């Protein structure tokens, strides 16, 4: 028994990646019946959640900044290895994925009626690749898994999507492919120019810091491009609303919930971890980009007439806070950015689920077709209200924690203090002042959406609609309970990643101190 436990703990991460693949394989041999496939994949996903908890609670020490659960295998000779490990940042993202996966599978019931085997197998492959991105510590493996994620995602949108699915899937594919090409170029450039003869990210991150400035800059920009396409950020964001609108509900939940966070994770892991020098140089521009995202996307939300587009643009706006947190180069900003990623993962999944339940019943996403829905779907209304409040960063819900930390971080950043302006506020503070307007706009579009969909005189057209089913309630309640939990007691999440993010900040701080 003890031997088994030891064996497991030494191979926890590889097992974490193999289990979904195994699941995909088993599902492929199942009869093509939706409930069977769903229940099996649900069992697998719960197992993954259990594993994530095991990893966190058995041996993981959040106080340690070093990598833990390290596994290192030869792959293509000594250069390209399979190195898996987690630190606080990775484990937070793994946890998010592990939470979202079972929820998504429960939500898949109405979507996966056609070709269930393929659907759930693809979902499992997607899980492996996303989890892999978060735990890979070999840059080549990281890249491969990053690209691997494209394949199931493309098919999930293109097969089970809406009317315009081919266009959306192709747009998603092209954007992400370009992102991947940028990353591939950057990986090769980094590999060759460093001369380290290894893709080990720990080693490379040390080499990268001593590269000539030009190479660092070039690699940084390529990596950064790749990540902000994924995040997404202006001006590479237009694939997201299209993809969301056409993607089926559970895929939207995963897309907003975890795939966008790959971009954020990449920025933290590579742009910050490898090239702090360049980050310091470009932080001002990143802050500007963040503000453009926060405000611009919120403005765009106000003028949409498609519910899914509103939520999609709202995702862009909220991911802007991650950029602002990184750009602030402070402990609070970094910590806020990570918290924001996690909390937005939960909130946006809940919002897409809610919109999906409406769409499933009415087959329209146009806001103007709705009105007075509370009459027929009161439970949906209450949960939508709660999710909207979380999205507009109401205190005591998780959205608030990330945003207030980012605000504070960017406002008090010593680094921005080096850039005074004529208005006495320094540069970062002006960014925060603008972003605070975003807070008002967010309240505006969320509540306006709520009002136009759920309030006002009832619409007899929808009088036959039924309220949320038990399975939908399970999905939403489990997401929103976490939103409340992490909002009321944020330390329970932040203690997991805090030392890692502080270590990152300190490495950046040294650069600022030198310059």
């Amino acid at each position: 028994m003890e031997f088994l436990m030891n064996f497991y703990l030494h191979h926890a991460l590889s097992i974490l990646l193999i289990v979904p693949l195994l699941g995909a394989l088993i599902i492929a041999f199942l009869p093509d019946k939706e409930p069977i496939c769903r229940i099996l994949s649900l069992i697998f996903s719960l197992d993954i959640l259990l594993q994530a908890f095991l990893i966190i609670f058995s041996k993981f020490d959040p106080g340690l900044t070093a990598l833990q659960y390290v596994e290192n295998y030869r792959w293509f000779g000594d250069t390209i290895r399979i190195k898996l490990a987690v630190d606080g940042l990775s484990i937070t993202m793994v946890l998010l994925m592990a939470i979202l996966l079972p929820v998504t599978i429960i939500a898949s019931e109405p979507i996966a009626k056609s070709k269930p085997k393929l659907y759930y197998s693809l979902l499992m492959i997607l899980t492996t690749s996303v989890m892999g991105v978060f735990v890979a510590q070999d840059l080549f493996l990281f890249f491969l898994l990053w690209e691997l994620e494209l394949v199931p995602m493309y098919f999930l949108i293109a097969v089970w999507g809406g009317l315009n699915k081919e266009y959306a899937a192709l747009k998603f594919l092209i954007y992400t492919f370009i992102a991947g090409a940028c990353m591939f170029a950057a990986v090769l450039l980094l590999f060759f120019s460093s001369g380290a003869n290894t893709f080990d990210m720990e080693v490379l991150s040390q080499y990268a810091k001593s590269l000539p400035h030009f190479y660092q800059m070039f690699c940084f920009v390529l990596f950064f491009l790749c990540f902000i396409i994924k995040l997404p950020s202006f001006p590479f964001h237009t694939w997201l609303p299209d993809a969301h609108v056409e993607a089926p509900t559970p895929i939207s939940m995963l897309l907003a919930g975890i795939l966008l966070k790959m971009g954020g994770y990449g920025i933290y892991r590579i742009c910050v971890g490898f090239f702090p020098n360049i980050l310091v140089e470009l932080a001002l521009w990143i802050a500007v980009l963040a503000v453009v995202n926060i405000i611009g996307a919120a403005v765009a939300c106000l003028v949409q007439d498609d519910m899914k587009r509103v939520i999609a643009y709202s995702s862009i706006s909220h991911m802007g806070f991650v950029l602002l947190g990184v750009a602030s180069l402070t402990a609070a900003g970094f910590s806020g950015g990570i918290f924001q990623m996690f909390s937005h993962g939960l909130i946006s999944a809940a919002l897409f689920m809610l919109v999906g339940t409406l769409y499933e019943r009415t087959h329209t996403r146009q806001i103007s077709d709705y009105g007075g829905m509370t009459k027929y779907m009161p439970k949906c209304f209450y949960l939508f209200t709660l999710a909207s409040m979380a999205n507009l960063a109401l205190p005591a819900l998780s959205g608030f924690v990330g945003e207030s930390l980012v605000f504070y971080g960017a406002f008090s950043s010593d680094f921005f203090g080096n850039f005074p302006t004529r208005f006495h506020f320094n540069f970062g503070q002006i960014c925060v002042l603008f972003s605070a307007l975003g807070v008002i706009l967010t309240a505006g579009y969320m509540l306006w959406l709520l009002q136009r969909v759920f309030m006002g005189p009832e619409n007899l057209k929808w009088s036959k609609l039924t309220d949320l089913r038990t399975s939908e309630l399970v999905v939403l309640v489990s997401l929103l309970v976490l939103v409340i939990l992490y909002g009321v007691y944020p330390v329970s999440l932040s203690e997991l990643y805090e030392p890692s993010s502080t270590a990152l900040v300190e490495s950046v701080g040294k650069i600022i101190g030198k310059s």
Partner: protein
Amino acid sequence: MSDLLIKTSWIIAAVPLISALLIILFFNFSRKISAFLSIGAVAYGLIHSILILYLSYKDPHHVLEINYPWISAGTFKLFVGYLVDPLCAMMLVVVCAVSFFVQIYTHGYMKEDPNYSKFYAYLSLFTFSMLGLVFSTNLFQSYIFWELVGVCSYLLIGFWWYKPSAANACTKAFIVNRIGDAGLLIGLLILYFSTQNLWQDKITLSFNELKNVLDTALRWDILPVVGIISITTIALFVFLGPMAKSAQFPLHVWLPDAMEGPTPISALIHAATMVAAGVYLIARSYPLYELSPIAMNTVAWVGGITAIFAATIALSQFDIKRALAYSTCSQLGYMVMALGLGAYSAGLFHLMTHAFFKAMLFLCSGSVIVACHHEQDMRHMGGLKKFMPITSLTCLIGVLAISGFPFMSGFWSKDMILAVAWEHNKPLFVIGSLTAMLTAFYMFRLYFMTFSGEYRGHAHPHETTLAITVPLISLAIPSIFIGLIGSPLIPGGDKFSSFISYGEHHAHHEWGLNVFIKEFLTIQGMIPFFAFLIGTTLAWLVYRKNLGLNTFIKNRLSVFYKLSFNKWYIDEVYFWGLNKLILPFYKFSWSIIDKVIVDGVFVNGSARVVSIVGGGLRYIETGRGQLYVLVIFSSVFFAILFLLSKGG
């Protein structure tokens, strides 16, 4: 025992939260259990908070503050906790008392509503958030609960979501409040940013340390009084929060619309407690304002302008609840003005007296509305005195109290404010006295139109049930007598100011009937009284004796009448700006940037470029694999060569 009572005071806030959760999760099927849980929770709170008030009154210097860490990042730490001091004890009693009576009243008012249980759940949730705000130890915690009371208000205004007016009102209320909140947040950020080194090993932004920290910051020249980043700026940004919450001009627009909610919440949230939270926050963060004369003046003038501005609108409203809403605005203006003038105790004293009589007035209006079968237009009322003796009597008490009839509660608190205005700022004294006159006029107008004369409606009015009249009578008692504790008539003089004060401690007050007469027979004592007399007489002449003043103003001074009747067109201006300027601009910029530039030029343009280039490349792209491999290999080869030569 007394220590234990104070230490466990957090239970007062926790019990309503628990009852709200119980109702939402388990007991929403049963009206009886929901009402029992909700009322029981606040009844417990009322008893406990009265005990705390008693203990705190016995020993005002005994202040308890307990904090727990909430989140930290680097050196940045935030706390939540609870603070029990005289101000908190007073607010606890006010909130619990009004909430208790309103919840009993709710049983009578909402008994036919299908969502009766939900209403109680929301009420409990609100009581929790409001008590949490009262207990806050620091500005940050205040901000948390500040937003939570806003959400409860949003939910309760939108309680009858199927009415388009209610749906609009709740969204508007939340968004206007959000504007204030954003200001408050920025204010807190600037404050914490500029003084962050002084908060180490202290509770971040704690109210008790605020004064010391600001004094130190001033002494060490960390923060100037005036400037772009200064105490004045911080105070003004922070003031945006109270401006929105306490419905001060020009962010007052949400409060009258909020009357679309059920009447019990108009009484509890939009008259007695939540709207007063703005005043409470100013009082809590008083060190900020006190240091900055500009901020103090702004506060005083915003309050004064709101007071008279809202009073002019209240003159011509026909909806009974809207008239009361504007009067709330106006009275809040008094409180804010008082704080701005440095009359700390007077402002809070008015907050307390106003909470009781205004809650009662709203409950009266609710009683009338029920009796008239949901008619809110005063033109269709009248003569209700015959049908509803209890309601009309309590309403008369409320009207006398708010207009400043001698010895009633509003008289003492308003006089205190005006006396300070007379000392410090004569123009504001004039505005205040004028407002007092207008107040007397429109309140008696409301009373006469509703209760005297002949009934003009078509319903069959009747006195309402005990669940409604008992709270009315219970609130009438403090409406008459509560003012006495701040009067010179009781032994020991003004007890309120010696209990709750800022800065110098008034341990000793003169007292006795002769002191009162002496104070009353001064100019600043007589003018408010005459303002009351003139206002009342005018209302009596116009609405009882049919003096043609109304028609004269309507015909000859139609500009003023229209301005008042249409609320100075503020809503129209805002909506014009929103619909004609802001949204079209947004729409335009979004379609230009996203549709034309990004999608049109970037995405589709690059696709076109690719297809053109592709056309040219047809000659190179032979489709022969060897050529591709050759090209790839040679480029990688040259790249490596290049890099090696660099490295070497």
